[in-house]
């Protein structure tokens, strides 16, 4: 009897593990990912309003404990002002990007600048739903024209890219997430790949060859917008914090600080932009 119970327990575990692994492989396989993302999308459509209602119910209690009667209104106004300031910061930073020469050059290559692109302003509803990823959830989704891979800007620069688009909400992977890779360039046109390093270490990039002329502390890196890039050109991404190349090294390692203030993401702009189809596709 005890033996049969033990066998049944083991069988239960084995079956559950096999089912779990099958679901994970369905999700990670490009061809079947749409099944799991569809299930997530439907659940999100049902769960988000319920969650919103609970948040609405609880937020006055939170505000009460914060000790300010108009806390919510002031906070909301502050966040809107921070978003407006961030937009101005982007515009200002863009001017410093050897604007005239580069714009002319990019115009010849039909590459878009952020100023010419349509954006959708979205409010952040959740930050880092998992302790293992750096994401935000925003209140705009497919019904507002949002698609996967669209760039998200705010708080002074590039914030991230849409990785999941539901009907009325989207999940944005932040540029500091370990999975994030952004093609960047700086003043003299040198191109590099800026990697997210997780919450503790912001971003880094490697330049080949080392000792690149013009590289200095504080220099701003912009999205490169190279052919086939998933982001438009000229969005401020990060500032050079430090750089070093060991003697005889074939590359220079750069530590970067995101240009966007990643603690001010209450409102962000999603850029309605899709990469140009590659020739022959």
């Amino acid at each position, binding site marked *: 009897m005890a033996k049969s*119970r033990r066998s049944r327990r083991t069988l239960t*575990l084995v079956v559950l*593990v096999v089912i779990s692994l099958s679901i994970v492989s369905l*999700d990670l396989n490009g061809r079947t990912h749409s099944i799991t993302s569809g299930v997530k999308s439907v659940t999100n459509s049902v769960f988000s309003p319920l969650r919103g209602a609970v948040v609405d119910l609880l937020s006055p209690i*939170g505000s009460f404990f914060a000790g300010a009667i108009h806390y919510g209104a002031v906070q909301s106004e502050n966040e809107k002002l921070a978003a407006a300031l961030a937009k101005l910061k982007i515009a200002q930073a863009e001017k410093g990007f050897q604007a005239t020469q580069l714009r002319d050059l990019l115009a010849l290559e039909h590459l878009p600048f952020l100023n010419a692109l349509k954006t959708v302003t979205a409010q952040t509803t959740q930050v880092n*739903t998992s302790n293992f990823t750096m994401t935000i959830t925003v209140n705009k989704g497919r019904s507002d024209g949002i698609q996967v891979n669209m760039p998200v800007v705010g708080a002074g620069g590039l914030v991230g890219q849409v990785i999941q688009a539901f009907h009325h909400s989207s999940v944005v992977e932040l540029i500091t997430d370990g999975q994030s890779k952004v093609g960047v360039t700086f003043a003299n046109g040198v191109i590099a790949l800026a990697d997210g390093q997780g919450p503790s270490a912001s971003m880094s990039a490697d330049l080949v060859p080392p000792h690149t002329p013009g590289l200095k502390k504080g220099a701003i890196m912009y999205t490169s917008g190279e052919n086939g890039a998933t982001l438009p050109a000229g969005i401020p991404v990060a500032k050079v914090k430090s750089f070093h190349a060991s003697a005889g090294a074939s590359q220079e390692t750069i530590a970067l600080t995101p240009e966007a203030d990643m603690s001010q993401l209450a409102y962000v702009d999603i850029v309605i932009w899709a990469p140009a189809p590659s020739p022959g596709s």
Partner: protein
Amino acid sequence: MTARYALRWLLVAFVVLMVQSTVMLSVRIGGVHPDLLWLLPITAALLDGPETGALVGFWSGLAFDLTLPTPFGLSALVGCVLGFSMGMATAAVDKRAVWLKPVAALFGSVVADMLFAVLGAVLGQQQMVQINFLSLFLVVALSSVVLVLPVNRFMRWALLPGGGDRRSLVSAQSPDGGLW
């Protein structure tokens, strides 16, 4: 399992998921928030053994996976392994011991987070091991120790209604019992 007990368990899972995605996400210490998910299989395993722990871990993990950006199914995988292991590890322990629940919550949540990160990295999500594990373990372990008692209360209500009137997600008599 009758529909009544299944509904009770679903209600508990839903409430915990709702609390996690509202209250817990706003409680951040060093950028880390408490994680209630692992407490469901841990308490279920302590109350009703490894098989129930595995089943509760699987279904609650799957429910949480629907709201997380991590690979779909990963929480279910870790949840069922955690529930089963916790049930097996505490099989010979007196369940009335005062220290059992906090200690199980502390070790269980840390081991689950570690397993979650490592499996995520193995599945190509390298960012899952690029986090500050010390602050993660501290926040998740300590919050689990504090929150295990209320979650255990809910789980007891779902799995063992009427105090000593022991019912289970898994029937001891029926070989095909449980949630299948």
